[in-house]
């Protein structure tokens, strides 16, 4: 029996459900499993069954069981990879046939580009609401009137949770952790109602996998499911668990601002706004009550708060007062849109010209600092989508390196840092397909950059105070500004 045990567990470790079902099928092994082997293996076998059961009920020619269970909210979830394989399905109500995804594939085909698949698709009996994250489609099936935003938010939360648990939200990670995935999905949604979506609570219910734990589990027979009631779930602060303890108490805040801008040919700003977030990493023992104040809170007139923030306090005193969740979370996101406040840190000079009746043209681009508040602009990348008739490009950069992809017609110039003494530029020839007319569409230009130690809106944290606990925490604030959707017209 020992050998069987090893065989099973090694196969389980590679998450090979196919083999598992085959073993089970091969005659009475389950009996043996049930009676003889240790129960961590039993439950793995069971998980495999539960996972497989979705497809079990669906024999060939059996249509979906719709109509019997008119349910609210999310009926089923399919995970689909880029090559169109459905590699995971979960049904919270009756089983919906995989064939429903054909409508999705149809839309996907029509959209050509994966990013252009419409998020809401109607089919004769269902609606498909999908998101595209990390090269995966999360396709949910709903049957009645449900707020689509509710579904989309939930799907993103599922993806966030996978990311949080497995370090990445990829097909491989999900397949490797299929048992945990099913446990999570079961815990996150009940009858289509979201149950526990806060990472703090989920982690109390189901422990994230670590190599150490999986080894320990298989030897000692303990499991990764918590057996106590998640403490936070019922208190007035559902986002925090009780009994948090750290030897080093730390609270770090990252103020991250992204500039979304459209700059026209002449270099003037058509549109600019700042999308800012404050992400927090809080490792504080007990029940700390924090208040964070700003030098210039008036900047924040359009904000979205984490539920932990006391809205009344903000309204009256412009102070962020909250009992934080444990770990990493997004405290607030905000938008600064008044034009005069949005500084544009770089400028671009560019030109592209084609001669009549000739198959080549000249291309020239220079980038320089503008309102950069005396900080270094780094990590600059320029991406240009060239017209379709461009065959290749022959350019010389003064710094950095460039690539041109002749299939997607995307020119990428990795510039690096700007040194004001010598402005980076990229010049050279554009070759068109022979005989092709002058291109009618304009290239489009996107820029990425990064400025450390600066929040471009001028937002500054004044102080962080902690109440309710005695110890003195380490505190820190970091600022960074990046380009968001930063686009320059030709």
């Amino acid at each position, binding site marked *: 029996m020992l050998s069987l045990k090893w065989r099973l567990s090694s196969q389980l470790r590679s998450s090979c459900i196919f083999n598992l079902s085959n073993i*089970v099928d091969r005659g009475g092994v389950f009996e043996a499993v049930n009676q003889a082997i240790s129960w961590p293996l039993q439950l793995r076998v069971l998980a495999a069954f539960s996972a*497989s059961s*979705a497809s079990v009920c669906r024999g060939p020619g059996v249509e979906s069981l719709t109509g019997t269970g008119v349910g609210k909210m999310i009926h089923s979830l399919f995970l689909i990879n880029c090559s169109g394989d459905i590699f995971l399905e979960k049904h919270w109500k009756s089983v919906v046939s995989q064939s429903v995804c054909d409508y999705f594939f149809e839309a996907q085909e029509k959209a050509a580009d994966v990013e252009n698949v419409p998020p*809401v698709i109607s089919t004769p009996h269902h609606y498909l609401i999908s998101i595209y994250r990390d090269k995966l489609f999360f396709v949910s099936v709903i049957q009645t*009137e449900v*707020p689509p*935003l509710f579904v989309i938010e939930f799907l993103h939360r599922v993806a966030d949770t996978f990311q949080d648990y497995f370090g990445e939200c990829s097909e491989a990670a999900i397949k490797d952790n299929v048992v945990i995935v099913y446990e999570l999905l079961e815990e996150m949604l009940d009858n289509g109602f979201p149950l526990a979506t806060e990472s703090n609570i989920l982690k109390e219910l189901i422990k994230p996998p670590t190599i150490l734990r999986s080894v320990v589990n298989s030897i000692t027979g303990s499991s990764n*499911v918590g057996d106590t009631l998640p403490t936070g779930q*019922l208190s007035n602060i559902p986002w925090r668990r009780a009994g948090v303890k750290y030897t080093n108490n730390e609270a770090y805040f990252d103020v991250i601002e992204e500039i979304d801008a459209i700059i*026209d040919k002449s270099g003037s700003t058509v549109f600019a706004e700042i999308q800012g977030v404050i992400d927090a990493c809080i490792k504080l023992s007990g029940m700390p009550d924090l208040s964070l104040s700003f030098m210039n809170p008036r900047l924040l007139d359009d904000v979205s708060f984490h539920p932990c923030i006391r809205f009344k306090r903000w309204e009256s005193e412009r102070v962020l007062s909250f009992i934080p969740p444990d770990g990493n979370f997004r405290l607030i996101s905000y938008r600064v849109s008044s034009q005069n406040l949005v500084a544009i840190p770089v400028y671009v000079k560019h030109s592209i010209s084609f001669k009549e009746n000739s198959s080549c043209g000249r291309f020239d681009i220079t980038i320089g600092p503008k309102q950069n508040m005396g900080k270094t602009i780094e990590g600059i990348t320029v991406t240009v989508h060239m017209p379709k008739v461009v065959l290749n490009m022959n350019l010389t950069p003064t710094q950095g390196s460039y690539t041109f992809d002749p299939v997607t017609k995307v020119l990428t110039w990795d510039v690096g840092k700007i040194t004001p003494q010598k402005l980076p530029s990229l010049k050279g020839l554009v070759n068109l397909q022979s005989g092709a007319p002058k291109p009618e569409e304009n290239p489009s230009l996107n820029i990425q950059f990064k400025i450390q130690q600066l929040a471009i809106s001028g937002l500054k944290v004044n102080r962080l105070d902690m109440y309710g606990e005695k110890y003195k925490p380490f505190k820190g604030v970091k600022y960074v500004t990046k380009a968001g959707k930063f686009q320059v017209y030709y």
Partner: protein
Amino acid sequence: MTVGKDVSALFPDVVNCMQTDNLELKKLVYLYLMNYAKSQPDMAIMAVNTFVKDCEDPNPLIRALAVRTMGCIRVDKITEYLCEPLRKCLKDEDPYVRKTAAVCVAKLHDINAQLVEDQGFLDTLKDLISDSNPMVVANAAAALSEIAESHPSSNLLDLNPQSINKLLTALNECTEWGQIFILDCLANYTPKDDREAQSICERVTPRLSHANSAVVLSAVKVLMKFMEMLSKDLDYYGTLLKKLAPPLVTLLSAEPELQYVALRNINLIVQKRPEILKHEMKVFFVKYNDPIYVKLEKLDIMIRLASQANIAQVLAELKEYATEVDVDFVRKAVRAIGRCAIKVEQSAERCVSTLLDLIQTKVNYVVQEAIVVIKDIFRKYPNKYESVIATLCENLDSLDEPEARAAMIWIVGEYAERIDNADELLESFLEGFHDESTQVQLQLLTAIVKLFLKKPTETQELVQQVLSLATQDSDNPDLRDRGYIYWRLLSTDPVAAKEVVLAEKPLISEETDLIEPTLLDELICYIGTLASVYHKPPSAFVEGGRGVVHKSLPPRTASNESTESPETAPAGAPPGEQPDVIPAQGDLLGDLLNLDLGPPVSGPPLATSSVQMGAVDLLGGGLDSLIGGTNFVAPTTAAAPANLGAPIGSGLSDLFDLTSGVGTLSGSYVAPKAVWLPAMKAKGLEISGTFTRQVASISMDLQLTNKALQVMTDFAIQFNRNSFGLAPAAPLQVHAPLSPNQTVEISLPLSTVGSVMKMEPLNNLQVAVKNNIDVFYFRTLYPLHILFVEDGKMGES
């Protein structure tokens, strides 16, 4: 993901594992049960005992897990056994168990509604609304609203100020998902007066800053709905307007899928209350890497927000878009330029020159779109931009899409006198007449007739040719009929023909693609739902229509009419009669085929006309004489839906009234007869009817049908007091008894001297009809234009 092995044979073995103390194992066994209980109902009974036992477990987590799983086992036999444990769990001391049990009631209701009612679970659930724990309240609200949806009539969610207060308190403390349920519940409540509406709004407003976009949009829904009740003079009204803009804009910085849903909803909000986002034009500027579905939605909203103040920016942007790579997007951008020209008069000149620039690019699809929109610009600003015709004619050959061809032909026909070689141009199209689409054929026919009327000498042959092509060689009835009508017109009275065909055309309205106001009001109640994404009322697409409740915005002031029975409460026509979407912008369908020479049929034939063509100009006054001045059914002008006469209240907005906004047919417009009283409700008497105004007298045209088996006699009619004092001017004259299956048509003259009482909506009329069998009541809306005297002023009111 697996080979699909059926492992239900292992049921007994798995159930044996159920008694374990290990939580993870228990969970997985439960998972297995949920999946296989249905296929092994007899064996599932074995699990009952364990469930009952687990429901008494000291660990609340296990109690909750048991009650949660129970609800997912959809086996009738089991459900009976589960009632007792569920009852206990609903009253459990631990809120975690109570909140799970609340959801379980909804599940059970789905399996066996009767059982849930008999066991009194609904009352328990209602009690949970007053629970001390906010999560329990939220789940109870969610469960109740799910159950209520399958029982539209039942008054399950009986919201009163006390329960509303409880919900609002719970709102602040429960999880984000709970907040969505509670907000959706709140949206179904109708506050008793504006003060209550304001206090609810004040307590909902903080939700606008929530990080979860679904919470934000649900809060927006509540606010948009209750704002309807607030007076616009109120300071708070202005504050609320200001507070609504930032969260809506913030939604646009989220993931593209969220943006899409948000944009679809913003599209509705902008139509209902343009003032909210009028200063936020720039956030709708399209970014290069937006997905196409986001780009198209943004473009639509940009045009809705375009005004004189921002038009320069908008045009500059649109011009950029017109040189992008994506064809669909470029097309829509070109169209958008045309719509701007029509919407903002000051910009028309610039728009036209932009369009001309685009035509110069010679990019095929750009040219075609440009020509389609220039046609509309000509309609809107006659005699202003005709100088560009020459440029357009240069591109005649490159047009290969029917819409563009039809538009070009319309232009040639309309301006035949200025185009020297108009006959040659049209003749060249005529060669392949039978290969053209119907749209182009109809347009060509009309254009050549116009040409003939303008230059009769040179084009006689051409017109003969097209008329014979249309009437003899075509099997398309629309085309043939139009051909015949032209032919007869031309042969009997060329002067009249000229008057008809070349009549002054009504100007097209500025806003296109607007959603019809009643539908818009209904959709505002459905913000954040699928209905708002599809811009259709839920009844139009939710499968089976089960549980769809017709929602309407609350009236602005809490008037005494609000006590009306729920049946009559919703304003406007029943959803079935509403058009799903107003037909695509563009062409006036001046469709001759809508000339209804016989007795008008009931039902709305207007919007459903399959023929879409450019303006045919038969709206002139000469028509009345042509067809004897009776029963002229106005063509639906798709492009002119919105600005009906200003005095018309929001209640007056069913489709047929819209057409009255065309305003060119002094008094001759008659809506088709609609069924007012179905036979089912009136012991076999079916009444359909409409209102007409002819030469200063109003009458109600009735059609009585006897669908019963006995003869009907002794008809009489009476009106309830109404807003304009409409009353029968003569008794209802049905001369002979009405035998089974017989129909009579009666025209009942009306006067406006009856007693007056303000109705809601304004044009509501309650009618009683009596016959030898019984008295029947029905309610109808009369179009306000019947009250207008011919000189354009409103009659005594």
